[in-house]
């Protein structure tokens, strides 16, 4: 308990980090491994100055404003749009894997690769989304 309380007492006030690295005082002893806890993506944010993600800034900003998020820095908006893009493209890649697995599972064509025309269907998307915990159910027919 002693090193813990000493760490709490010695915690620097907010914004008083020297080089952005907070080292707990027990690190010098060797009983607490130092964990570099800089804010990730700080450097990446600098690289976003002249980057245009696929989603326009206006569209992302519109949806963020609807949620109550007013961004002071346009790079923040680009970061969020990039994250959303990656989210969707990860799902798309998973669906592509499913599609490919269905095609070559029976071993139809071994000499040449499966034809390059992949169509995203709900049958491929549903298991891909299920891995993320999203369950979609489509009615087979419309009454």
């Amino acid at each position: 308990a002693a090193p813990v309380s000493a760490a709490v007492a010695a915690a620097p006030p907010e914004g008083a980090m020297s080089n952005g690295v907070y080292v707990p005082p027990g690190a010098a002893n060797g009983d607490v491994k130092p964990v570099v806890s800089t804010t990730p993506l700080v450097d990446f944010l600098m690289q976003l100055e002249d980057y245009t993600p696929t989603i326009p800034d206006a569209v992302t900003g519109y949806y963020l404003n609807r949620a109550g998020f007013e961004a002071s820095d346009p790079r923040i908006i680009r970061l969020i749009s990039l994250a959303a893009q990656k989210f969707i493209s990860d799902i798309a890649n998973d669906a592509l894997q499913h599609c490919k697995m269905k095609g070559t599972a029976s071993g139809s064509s071994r000499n040449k690769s499966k034809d390059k025309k992949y169509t995203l269907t709900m049958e491929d998307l549903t298991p891909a989304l299920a891995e993320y915990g999203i369950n979609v159910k489509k009615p087979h027919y419309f009454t």
Partner: protein
Amino acid sequence: RSGSKHASTPADNYYLARRRTLQVVVSSLLTEAGFESAEKAAVETLTEMLQSYISEIGRSAKSYCEHTARTQPTLSDIVVTLVEMGFNVETLPAYAKRSQRMVITAPPVTNQPVTPKALTAGQNKPHPPHIPGHFPEFPDPHTYIKTPTYREPVSDYQVLREKAASQRRDVERALTRFMAKTGETQSLFKDDVSTFPLIAARPFTVPYLTALLPSELEMQQMEETDSSEQDDQTDTENLPLHMSTDDSGPEKENTSVLQQNTSLSGSRNGEENVIDNPYLRPVKKPKIRRKK
């Protein structure tokens, strides 16, 4: 939301344009992944997911920021949000550097319609203090100022009496001229017939006959009183249509006079219901006493 086509407001258009942009983005991402085509339902699903993902990031980042008593979200808030949503932030720089990237143009922004200088009339009303400054201005005053097109009616007694008198004179004149036009006329002047037409008098052959004979009204009145005294209906000329019960004589006369005044034409049909109201009783033609 996406299917209705009728009467979309500018806010709806705003929303729909951005949603279409998201759909285009999703399609481009799918193309990057290697798909040639996609089901519409799948694209719609992914669009909906993308929109709600962005909204959720915004809401959650704002919540984290407010949780630490700040109002401006920072990078840390977003990182924590992404971590909470199960997103691996370390792969993000690698993703940003991928080769095939597509850029979608943003939806166009329409400016507010501004009336040109030549069409403005009058001074716009300034904003009241409770309206923020970035709201649009008030429209020109001619769009909401209304002036009544009627004048107040004249209620001066003298003017009204004069008007009433002149109206009555005009009516009388018009009526007499109408009768002169449609009937026989006599003229005061020898040559000029049409200027001052007088309604021609019809002299009777026996002028004193009207003074001796009772008028139609008096005859009806007499018959009325006669029939009320008798109970039986022996009159052949005009059937008395009503059996009075226990009225006195003068009262009968008054009622009969009233009846004659109200319905001079007289209803001569035989069947009429008994009405209690004396003013609604049908007219009874008096029986002519011949024997007395």
